[in-house]
């Protein structure tokens, strides 16, 4: 793929946001959009600069990212492990799947009051919520991926003398990978969403906390800045997942002409 087609393909996605920003700036300057409703992009940029200089922004992004990743690591690995176990063993599935499906029907954010009672506004509260939110998409899609592996390929592997280990790493896991990636990308979205809500409600640091502080002092530019940064972080996580997907699913027809 040449550089110019790359630019055209990816660049075109940025056209609309840039136009919206330009229109927004013009509207603010013309006074159509009052500054206490939505500050001009330039004001948000100023806030960005101010908070970067004071170090506050970097610190809060760091805190939020660390929370997000920790929660993701805990919830994601448990979900992945259980998804594998239940995909490979009927006993394990029989034992746990019904329970898990029941818990899945509770929106995890509905647990916030309970979680605050348990953990207060400590780190555990955020970790727990993010882990719980991330768990289900990873679990469900890993299980689905393993169940959808072509049994004919598994049979072929057995005929050719693969032991269980080889069968898992050469047939089952690669076959489940596309579904696992769907779960991963979905889980990353849930990860940020959960964190924003949790930090907004109960935290003493992080991006959500920064936004809530700013609201109390009517610093609307900082509020908008926080929202934009959440959006950027979410996009960044998704892009990373897509890159990984591209690298590991090169065989998949969907990725062969990209």
């Amino acid at each position, binding site marked *: 793929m040449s550089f110019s087609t790359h630019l055209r393909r990816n660049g075109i996605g940025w056209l609309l946001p840039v136009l919206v920003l330009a229109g927004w700036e013009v509207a603010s300057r013309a006074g159509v959009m009052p500054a206490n409703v939505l500050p001009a992009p330039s004001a948000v940029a100023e806030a960005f600069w101010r908070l970067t200089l004071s170090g506050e922004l970097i610190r809060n992004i760091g805190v939020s990212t660390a929370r997000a990743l920790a929660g993701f690591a805990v919830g994601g690995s448990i979900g992945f492990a259980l998804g594998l176990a239940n995909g490979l063993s009927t006993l394990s599935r029989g034992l746990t799947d019904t329970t898990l499906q029941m818990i899945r029907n509770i929106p995890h954010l509905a647990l916030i009051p309970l979680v605050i009672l348990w953990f207060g506004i400590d780190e555990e509260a955020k970790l727990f919520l993010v882990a719980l939110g991330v768990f289900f998409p990873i679990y469900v899609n890993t299980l689905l991926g393993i169940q959808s592996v072509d049994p004919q390929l598994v*049979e*072929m592997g057995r005929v050719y003398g693969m032991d269980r280990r080889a069968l898992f790493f050469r047939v089952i896991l690669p076959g489940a990978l596309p579904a696992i990636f769907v779960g991963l990308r979905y889980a990353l979205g849930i990860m940020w969403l959960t964190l924003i809500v949790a930090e907004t409600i109960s935290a003493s640091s992080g991006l959500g906390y920064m936004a809530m502080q700013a609201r109390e002092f009517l610093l609307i530019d900082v509020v908008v800045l926080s929202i934009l940064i959440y959006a950027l972080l979410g996009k960044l996580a998704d892009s990373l997942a897509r890159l990984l997907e591209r690298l590991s699913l090169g065989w998949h*027809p969907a990725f062969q002409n990209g």
Partner: protein
Amino acid sequence: MPAASLTAVRSFVTTPAPARPAISVEGRRAFAFKGVEKRFGDKTVLDGIDLDVPVGQFVAVIGKSGCGKSTLLRLLAGLDRPTSGSLTLGAEEEGHSRTRFMFQEPRLLPWASVVKNVEVGLTGLASGTQARQRALDILGKVGLADRADEWPSVLSGGQKQRVALARALVGHPQVLALDEPLGALDALTRIEMQQLLERIWIAQKFTAVLVTHDVAEAVALADRVVVISDGRIALDLDVPVERPRRRGSAELARREGRILDQLFG
């Protein structure tokens, strides 16, 4: 449901070879079915199959759809076990026999390159550069050496089946079981594949068991054609015709006629 099939590790252990080598007039024995029955629930699919096949023979198995041809092959490959009766596999020099299976579908791993797929046939036999070298050699024999590093999804149907054939042959099997491997190919590719199969069979001298719906294919390739009907062997016909055989020759046509009579007469 791969979960269940995973836990069911290949359970049918091949019966140990008799202490005295089973020498028949034709030579050593590749395998023998003795009074083999196979039932699924209360449905009897195979009802007393006796089939003694010497090493190196090319056997074609013919029968109407649903008569139990695939079941027979699955028993041979150890994918299933007989309800009663016994299956004896001949002893190989190293003491155990190797049966390979070629399916109706190519069953290539989409996430492995062509050469990696062929290397699957060397599982437990070779690995690393040695495996790659052997895989490349056999790919050359099926005419796909230049596609070694491509994904299977870009190959045509006939090319995929050639990769599957290479995978089945790379480990130098004693017995190759082929379950209508050419059924899905167009007529021209089919004839090409038949010739390729015959060439490699002549060179490697394995025992071949080919299940097919195509009577012309059976008489063109096989030393012996077995017709299955009502769970039994209804006809066991030798085809002692010189190779290379000329398709449509009178000798082949006569045998084709006999088989068709047996099937529909």
